[in-house]
């Protein structure tokens, strides 16, 4: 789960990491009031989860009230890489001499956390990594002991930070604790600004929390609905589905992450465009099937649906019954549905399926091809 900048900054500030004064605003007037209260100059920043907000026009500086009003008007309601901006963060603009990058993430290959510092902050760190990998100093953390202070200092000194190295090391240590205490998968400050007085200030804040650990962080889980970028993703959270929205028109429902991904790939392989990833998981019964159909039918882009189930624990007859039940409740089937059942009780399922409501195919390939054809027909 990705926190918004303002949420992450709240968490960071609570641990004592210096952050600029800021206020969240969801209307132009609120933004102007916030800017007046904070004092000019301010930065007005769109609160959506996209990289490169600045370049895309999602961050503007304002020297006075007029500029604040105009910046807030521009940003609020704008479409930023497909996401609607509903809130802006109005923030004290910090005068800085240097911009540093600090971050903590999990090195999955090594199975342990890694902390990173670079003197080249303020720009996309992935670009720095690509151009000049040595500009990012990394250090693995032993998860049994946590980040030792000497390690934090070592990366800071090796990154060539000089006089501010020990301060940056302290921020990094705090950031690591925060990463650990909140079950984060990634935390990042970019830029960590260095002021003329050699103070450090977190001018941005990124924090992603492990979805699987939200159960022990109710205060963060509560932020979740607020953080969802999309109504359908929000709905998927409620239904407890693994769901990812894409921009195609073939709705896809399946069981098991790998099989669903494969179904998406095969839709693409046969010239179609997947509208979503939706995994109903193992052992799904009627209600989950109904919910899954609700999800894909709620996506206005969807023109055709393919259901691909390979039963292990999941039983084909139960899925078939669920599909029948869900569709029989509807006055009209909104979009054509193609079903492929294999594995446990697949034959029983195929017998049950109401072929007035769905098309049935034997193989993955045939089912996908049929669903793609349906979508293409609708497009014509």
């Amino acid at each position: 789960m990705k926190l918004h900048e303002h949420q992450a900054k709240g968490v960071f500030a609570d641990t004592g990491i210096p952050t600029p004064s800021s206020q969240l605003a969801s209307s132009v007037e609120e933004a102007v009031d916030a800017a007046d209260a904070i004092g000019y100059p301010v930065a007005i920043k769109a609160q959506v989860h996209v990289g490169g907000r600045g370049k895309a026009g999602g961050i503007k500086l304002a020297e006075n009230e007029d500029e604040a009003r105009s910046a807030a008007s521009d940003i609020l309601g704008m479409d930023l890489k497909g996401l609607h901006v509903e809130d802006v963060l109005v923030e004290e603009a910090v005068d800085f001499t240097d911009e540093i990058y600090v971050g903590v993430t999990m090195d999955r290959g090594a199975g342990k956390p890694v902390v990173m510092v670079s003197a080249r902050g303020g720009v996309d760190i992935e670009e720095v990594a690509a151009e000049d990998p040595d500009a990012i100093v990394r250090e693995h953390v032993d998860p049994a002991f946590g980040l030792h202070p000497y390690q934090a200092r070592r990366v800071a000194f090796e990154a060539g930070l000089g006089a501010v190295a020990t301060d940056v090391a302290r921020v990094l240590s705090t950031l690591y604790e925060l990463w650990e205490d909140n079950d984060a998968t990634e935390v990042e400050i970019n830029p960590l600004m260095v002021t003329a007085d050699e103070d450090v200030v977190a001018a941005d804040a990124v924090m992603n929390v492990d979805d699987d650990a939200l159960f022990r962080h109710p205060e963060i889980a509560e932020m979740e609905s607020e953080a969802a970028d999309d109504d359908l993703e929000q709905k998927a959270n409620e239904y407890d589905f693994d769901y990812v929205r894409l921009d195609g028109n073939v709705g896809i429902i399946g069981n098991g992450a790998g099989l669903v991904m494969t179904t998406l790939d095969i839709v693409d392989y046969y010239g179609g465009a997947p509208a979503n990833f939706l995994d109903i998981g193992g052992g799904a019964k009627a209600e989950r099937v109904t919910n899954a159909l609700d999800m894909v039918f709620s996506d206005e882009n969807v023109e055709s649906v393919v259901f691909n189930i390979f039963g292990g624990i999941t039983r084909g007859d139960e899925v078939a019954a669920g599909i029948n039940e869900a569709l029989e409740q509807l006055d009209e089937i909104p979009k054509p549905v193609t079903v492929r059942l294999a594995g446990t009780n697949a034959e029983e399922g195929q017998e049950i399926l109401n072929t007035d409501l769905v098309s049935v195919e034997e193989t993955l390939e045939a089912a996908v091809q049929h669903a793609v054809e349906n979508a293409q027909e609708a497009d014509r």
Partner: protein
Amino acid sequence: MSVLVDDDTRVVVQGITGGEGKFHTDQMIEYGTNIVAGAVPGRGGEHVSGVPVYDTLESAVTKHDATAVVVFVPPAFAADAMFEALDTSVDLVVTITEGVPQQDMSRVYRRLQETDTRLIGPNCPGIITPGQSKLGILPGNIFTEGNVGLVSRSGTLTYQVVDNLTQRDIGQSTAIGIGGDPIIGTDFIDALELFDADPDTDAIVMCGEIGGEDEEEAAAYIDNNVTTPVVGFIAGRTAPPGKRMGHAGAIVSGSGTGTAASKIEALESADVPVGDTPATVADYVESRL
């Protein structure tokens, strides 16, 4: 004839009294797995599916000379269960549980390195040696005895590929679901090494997916070490960056590492053919046997 599990594997089920634990214990016993005991705190002295239950895993393992543990406990307690299993020094631990917090797993992995135990999973369907033993939730009926080793990050995708193989009358030596999490006990290289050393495995299917660099590393390993023919498959060619595709580990990073394209390229440059569909994978396997 197989790797890691066979008729001699003696299994304790951790969490045997839970819904999933009990259901799959029955399934495993029916398949022929030698389940010797279960362990659930506070349930010592009971019997489930005909096997005795102990309060502590240590008692269960010690009293029944168990060699393997299958973990079916809920995610919040799974790390503790794995630490407990590692503490018994059994040869093999298979963790089915999905949703183990990443940092918990990082600590388990750290401990794992200090032991001689092999861990499969978490978030995996388990391991099966057709006709002998299965540890996990794999549907036994779709597998047949044979000479193809299968290793996969995904459960249902494995079933799909096995189905395609079966349609061509190709059986499996052992199939290992290594799990879809970012941090797992056994990776592709471990499995490839085992299969390559197994005289009864004549071809290997390796089903990868987006996220991480395991497949790239496996490709390099194959290039340098593996003599058994390997056929690949990579799920997630159409996955957008930054989104978790079901599995906690199936995520293409913002910087573009972990993509299907990178993995396919790595495998192909190690002379591993990569199928566009599961059916193509089966074709490639058939042609290599």
